[in-house]
């Protein structure tokens, strides 16, 4: 449902960030996008959402991502930003969750029902009427995921969903991600989380795909990971193979 065809991109001339990137993600797949700092992971997300324009073609369910198709494309994609502070802009969590559905012209009742269903699913009922500037970083992350889920997107993009979370909340986020039946594209340095949530991994290195395959192969490959400035997932450390 997501396809990159020979995509290249640079923020500044002569400093390419992505070079001739091609891959394809099928409906329902859960894909982890990994790579060192500055490898271009967030940039891939930006291009996909049409927040930046590069060369090549990007398709979302057959629709090319172009300026005139953005409303159609964005409606299919839910994006959880790396920094939740920038994601939540309404006074309360509840209003923030309503924002998307109402923009998509759902009735107030339908939108309310969605909000309650999502809050229940994520066990966040307590957060509903809290003020965004008065909740902790982790709570805000959970709330940000909730705002995206109320839009019922067909694919969910998450940029570092577990950064800044304590182990308990991290576990909740991981379990939540596992339960989502949508197509998922997740970037993270938390390789254990990727191992837990994704079947497939794309490894980016200096704007190119260094590896693309089953999570159980790539994340177990110590040499490959170390060549690309990463380490084995903690849960696999100390295994002698």
């Amino acid at each position, binding site marked *: 449902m997501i396809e990159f065809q020979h995509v290249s991109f640079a923020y500044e001339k002569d400093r390419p960030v992505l070079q001739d990137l091609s891959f394809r993600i099928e409906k329902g797949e859960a894909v982890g996008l990994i790579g060192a700092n500055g490898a271009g992971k967030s940039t891939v997300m930006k291009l996909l959402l049409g927040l930046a324009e590069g060369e090549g073609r990007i398709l979302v369910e057959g629709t090319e991502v172009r300026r005139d198709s953005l409303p159609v494309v964005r409606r299919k994609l839910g994006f959880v930003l790396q920094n939740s*502070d920038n994601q939540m802009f*309404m006074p309360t969590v509840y*209003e923030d969750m309503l924002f998307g559905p109402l923009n998509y012209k759902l009735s107030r009742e339908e939108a309310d029902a969605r909000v309650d269903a999502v809050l229940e699913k994520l066990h966040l009922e307590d957060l509903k009427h809290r003020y965004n*500037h008065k909740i902790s970083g982790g709570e805000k992350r959970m709330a940000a995921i909730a705002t995206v889920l109320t*839009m019922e997107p067909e694919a969910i993009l998450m940029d570092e969903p577990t950064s800044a979370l304590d182990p308990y909340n991290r576990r909740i986020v991981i379990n939540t991600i596992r339960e989502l039946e949508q197509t998922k594209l997740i970037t993270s340095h938390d390789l254990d989380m990727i191992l837990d949530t994704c079947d497939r991994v794309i490894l980016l290195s200096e704007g190119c795909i260094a590896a693309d395959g089953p999570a159980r192969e790539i994340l177990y490959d110590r040499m490959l990971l170390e060549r690309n400035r990463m380490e084995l997932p903690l849960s696999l450390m100390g295994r002698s193979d």
Partner: protein
Amino acid sequence: MNKMQRAIRELSEMDELAAGSSLIHALHPAAKLVTTVVYILVTLSFDKYDLGGLVPMLLWPVLLFQVSGIEVKACFYKLRIVLPLVMAVGLFNPFFDKAILLQLGGLPVSGGVISMLTLMLKGVFCLMASFLLMATTSIDSLCAALRKLHVPKLIVTLLLLTYRYVGVMTEELAVMTDAYHLRAPGQKGIHISAWGSFLGQLLLRSMDRAQELYSSMMLRGYCQEFYYADYRAFRLGDALYVPASSTAFFLLRTVRIAELLGSTIVR
């Protein structure tokens, strides 16, 4: 808490005030907006020497404070920065306008003093009315109301984004001043040599954040319409509120309450 964080807190407290649940809060935002505009226009229309006529206009804000349960204290605390500015407007009148208008217990009072007081009161009344509007109406529903009154999308969006941008900017400023003071202990304020880079960074950082916020709005289907505000139909109560309060203002404007009172007492 540094100064900036207090500023952020105050800004967000407006949101909290606006989330109250009094009769006034429950009114339709458009009704409140129109009424406030009418009040301000009527208040400004008083003659510059008509102090006695102007004073009774205070009744309306007092009534609103009562009904909405918002503390008068909160109003003056939040307006403490702008109030002196408004008060300063008429400060020079007594020097220009020295004609004696009336004697107060043998003390001559010049036209300048009267017009100064009138101007000050006009300013304070209008500020109070605007404060009450903001404190009983969330920024989003206010924007929705403006759209309902056919104010162009662009202007309304600008208003909303400015409101949010100010919040983002103060937040960034708070983080940056903290970071600065941690590495410049014992220093008051920010040294003048760092102002240039400090301001530049602030602008860039807050612009980046504002950009991300805006993207986040667009990614959730925002198209300069305000569906998400606590939207509801215009009810009979709202429809009555505007003419009822406007009539009250016009009565206050035309019937000289102070003189009536004065003449009955004298008689």
